[in-house]
């Protein structure tokens, strides 16, 4: 007897067992012990509380009797509300349209009287101004400086000033957006000591003793690409979604 035949034989004997009957033919040896186990499982059946059962039965039967039947109750209640709902929706639509129209007229008049607003046919303008790079130079003087004094010339990154004029739509509304980058502050620090040591000659910017410190930071800003940018996306799926309103009665 293969597994499928065994499963069929077990199903027949189990169905008979569960309705309190027994089949005329004795079960095969392989499933006799399984039937004994099935009896044990059957005894594990959780039992409801009798008081809850009685209360629920009464509640269900009373509510179904009071409703006068589910189909007629839901079917009959649609008719009186149909025309009323249509009238309400139509009235709300008219009120919304009048409000929008009136608001538009008022807005248009107010916009025409306001001298601060540009005319509607203002040309579209977009330009970018680039500021001059500022060069800070520290000229050594016979100040009392220790032997390791260095001077550094640091070119300040050229700040950009961006002015964007957005096109003004033909409607009474107007939008004007200006984006300005924040101001850039450059700081130069000069360390001095109290000893007077005369220097043989003025230090030249870019000399071997001072030019190595400023080049490193410029290339470090390229980390803008985000390789992990999508890692927290795509988890919105809900594989267990079930339609409560359709109780899944596939056969009916």
């Amino acid at each position, binding site marked *: 007897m293969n*597994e499928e035949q065994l499963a069929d034989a077990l*199903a027949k004997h189990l169905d008979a067992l569960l309705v309190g009957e027994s089949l005329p033919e004795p079960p095969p040896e392989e499933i006799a012990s399984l039937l004994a186990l099935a009896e044990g499982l059957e005894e*594990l059946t*959780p039992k409801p509380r009798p008081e809850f059962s009685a209360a629920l*039965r009464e509640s269900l039967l009373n509510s179904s009797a009071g409703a006068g039947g589910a189909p007629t109750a839901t079917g009959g209640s649609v008719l009186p509300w149909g025309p009323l709902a249509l009238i309400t929706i139509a009235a709300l639509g008219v009120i919304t349209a009048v409000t929008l129209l009136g608001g538009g007229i008022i807005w248009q008049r107010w916009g025409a009287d306001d001298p601060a607003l540009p005319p509607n046919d203002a040309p579209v303008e977009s330009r970018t101004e680039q500021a001059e790079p500022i060069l800070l130079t520290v000229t050594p003087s016979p100040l009392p400086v220790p032997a390791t004094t260095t001077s550094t010339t640091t070119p300040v990154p050229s700040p950009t000033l961006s002015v964007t004029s957005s096109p003004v739509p033909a409607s009474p509304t107007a939008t004007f957006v200006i984006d300005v980058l924040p101001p850039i502050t450059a700081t130069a620090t000069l360390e001095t000591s109290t000893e007077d040591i005369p220097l043989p000659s003025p230090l030249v910017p870019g000399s071997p003793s001072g030019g190595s410190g400023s080049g490193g930071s410029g290339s470090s800003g390229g980390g803008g690409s985000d390789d992990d940018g999508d890692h927290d996306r795509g988890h919105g799926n809900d594989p267990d979604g*079930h339609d*409560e309103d359709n*109780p*899944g009665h596939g056969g009916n």
Partner: protein
Amino acid sequence: MIPKEDFGPLFDEYYSKLYAYIRSQVANRETAEDITAATFERAFSRSHLYDANKGSFATWLFRIARNLVINHYASVSRKPVHYDLTEAMEISTAEPSPEQQVIRQEQHRVLLELLSDLSERDQEIISLKFFGRLPNKKIAEIMDLKEKTVSVIVLRALQKLKSRLEAKAAI
């Protein structure tokens, strides 16, 4: 369409089976009672949608219950099902002696423990079979499986339970 006069007999026929199935799927008795009540309310209030030519009332009722259980777990995290043997009240009444009652209760405790080790699908099918007392054909309709598949799952689950029970007894 179910006539209203049939509501009472249908409730009487299926209430205990339905409750037992739902109770085996949820964590506590109160939730099981709520879902049982919701299942009957939904079945009776939408009885005009039921067509006996397309399936049995039992299949329809248990499918509603199953969907409500799934919806319940969509809103709360799944917790292990625990019910003590006092909820299966008829266990010890047939036992002739207190010693045998104790042995029997211990066997049931072990069986419950082993049952919880089965996969969720197998547990549900076993529950529909033994607590809901449904034939394999109806279980197949409820679970969207083939009848033969259900038969094989029941066979394998029982074989698994039996071998684990024997292994536990040998220790």
